[in-house]
């Protein structure tokens, strides 16, 4: 449980942020320069806000009214920075246990459990200088986890890694987010990471927090286009694998009475997964279409059409109780006579569902 309501300065930018997040993974999402790092530094106690209140699990760590401002050391926040910030003169093992021997933090979490979770067992005697970027970042995460934190902040842990390294580390983050057992604040400017890892989304734009809420609801909102970046727009669907890959290599996923067929998805029957479907990959038809290569055709009902000028319209449709977002031209909207409440068929090219965005959903 994290409550933040602070104002302060981030360089030239006036920062005013207000959100609260229950347990699980909360993403702080915004473009570069939106003030994400400053805000996390305020929560961690590295930067002092001008005024406001920050509370973790109901206990204030900063409160300008009652004059509370706990030191970095006593906030018990595990902080994973953009650059791993490992101590270069210490072995991986000494880095991991630093909080215990230098910070006198209790060993609430077993060392073996953390090294196992992050795949660090083989690296313990190495020096940070000999590790790859992804390995460094995993050590940094382990080091923070072993400091007995009540909140874990991860400030763009993947930002300095190339795509291949990111793909290496993401499965570890999946497991971490599911098994950490403490609230996590995950900072990112990548909507893919946010959609994959988090339950709550806080949008930070120009130093302000215009909106926060459950991640699927936030991604479905059409009024936040500028803050989230238009080309990224899409929607999240929660589902469960009902049939493993068939002879054609397609896996069947049930999203609540409606089935989707997804290629290259290796998961076991019954596994909960989360799918992200980009708005630009969805087309709209009035009737079921025959003679079409697209396999995923979902019946839905239009819930809203964005009032925008410009050539495109954002359409939200309800499908089996979830929301799918489509971007089509305004010309098509007029031609098809689309309006709110109208039943439609949504055509999704199955290849548009990227297996990298597979993530354990809330179960």
């Amino acid at each position, binding site marked *: 449980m994290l409550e933040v309501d602070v104002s302060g300065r981030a360089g030239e930018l006036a920062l005013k942020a207000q959100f609260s997040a229950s347990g699980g993974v909360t993403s702080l999402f915004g473009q570069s320069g939106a003030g994400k790092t400053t805000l996390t530094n305020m929560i961690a106690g590295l930067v002092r806000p001008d005024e406001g209140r920050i509370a973790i699990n109901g206990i204030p760590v900063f409160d300008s009214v009652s004059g509370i401002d706990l030191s*970095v*050391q006593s906030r018990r926040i*595990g902080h994973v920075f953009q650059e791993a910030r490992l101590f270069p*003169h210490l072995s991986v093992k000494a880095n991991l246990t630093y909080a215990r021997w230098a*910070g006198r933090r209790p060993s609430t979490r077993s060392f073996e459990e953390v090294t196992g979770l992050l795949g660090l067992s083989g690296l313990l005697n190495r020096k940070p200088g*000999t590790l790859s970027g992804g390995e460094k970042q995993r050590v940094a995460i382990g080091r923070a986890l072993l400091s007995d934190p009540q909140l874990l902040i991860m400030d763009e842990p993947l930002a300095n890694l190339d795509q291949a390294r990111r793909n290496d580390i993401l499965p570890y983050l999946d497991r971490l987010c599911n098994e950490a057992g403490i609230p996590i604040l995950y900072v990112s400017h990548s909507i893919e990471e946010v959609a994959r890892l988090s339950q709550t989304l806080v949008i930070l734009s120009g130093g302000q927090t215009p909106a926060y809420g459950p991640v699927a609801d936030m991604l479905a909102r059409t009024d936040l286009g500028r803050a989230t970046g238009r080309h990224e727009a899409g929607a999240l669907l929660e589902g469960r694998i009902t049939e493993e890959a068939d002879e054609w290599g397609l896996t069947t996923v049930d999203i609540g009475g409606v089935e989707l067929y997804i290629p290259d998805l290796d998961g076991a029957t019954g596994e909960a997964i989360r799918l992200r479907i980009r708005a630009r990959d969805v087309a709209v038809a009035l009737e079921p279409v025959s003679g079409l290569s697209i396999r995923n055709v979902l019946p839905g009902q239009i819930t809203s059409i964005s009032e925008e000028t410009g050539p495109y319209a954002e359409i939200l449709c309800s499908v089996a109780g979830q929301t799918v977002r489509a971007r089509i031209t305004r010309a098509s909207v007029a031609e098809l006579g689309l309006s709110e409440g109208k039943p439609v068929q949504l055509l999704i090219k199955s290849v548009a569902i990227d297996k990298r965005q597979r993530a354990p959903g809330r179960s």
Partner: protein
Amino acid sequence: MALLVALPAAICVAYVLARYRFPGHGAVNALVHMPLVLPPVVTGYVLLLAFGRNGPIGSLLRETFGISFAFNWTGAALAAGVMAFPLLVRPIRLSFEAIDPKLEEAAKSLGARRIVVFLTVTLPLALPGILGGAILGFAKAMGEFGATITFVSNIPGETRTLALALYTATQSPSGDVAAFRLTLIAAVIAFGALIASELLARRLRKQLGAEDA
């Protein structure tokens, strides 16, 4: 001896100068560097005025602790220490400044108190610079002449440093052999110190994972 006392003091001063900006920062910096630019004889004379038997600091020390610096070996050590101080401070300060404060932030977020952060992160990372400073300071202290002879004179067995002894030997007509012997000793000590520091520095670099840099 001079080095043992001066080194911790130099580390403290260097750290403060590197990490903090305060009123009088420039003045402290200038004061530290004074012995480097002043003629050594001036420094020796100032020491004599301050720490001599009747000097303000000298008489205070003598009355409260019974310590006297004037005309004995502790005085020679003090002179050497003061002269070596700026040479100690400079490289140490530079190596402190080269350490990323972000590492110290990370250590704090892991619960380490300031002094622990300094001992476990800052100091080990600054070791190469501290070593460099110590070697420079050692060389300066060994060769120190002007301030020593002004402050504590040249008393055999008491304040006669290597440099002073060498000077004395060259002044007497029969001192050639002694002078040559002293030169040899000086060369051996200096050479040994340089080799030792080089070996130490190499080991430190390896420990810090220099292949990364």
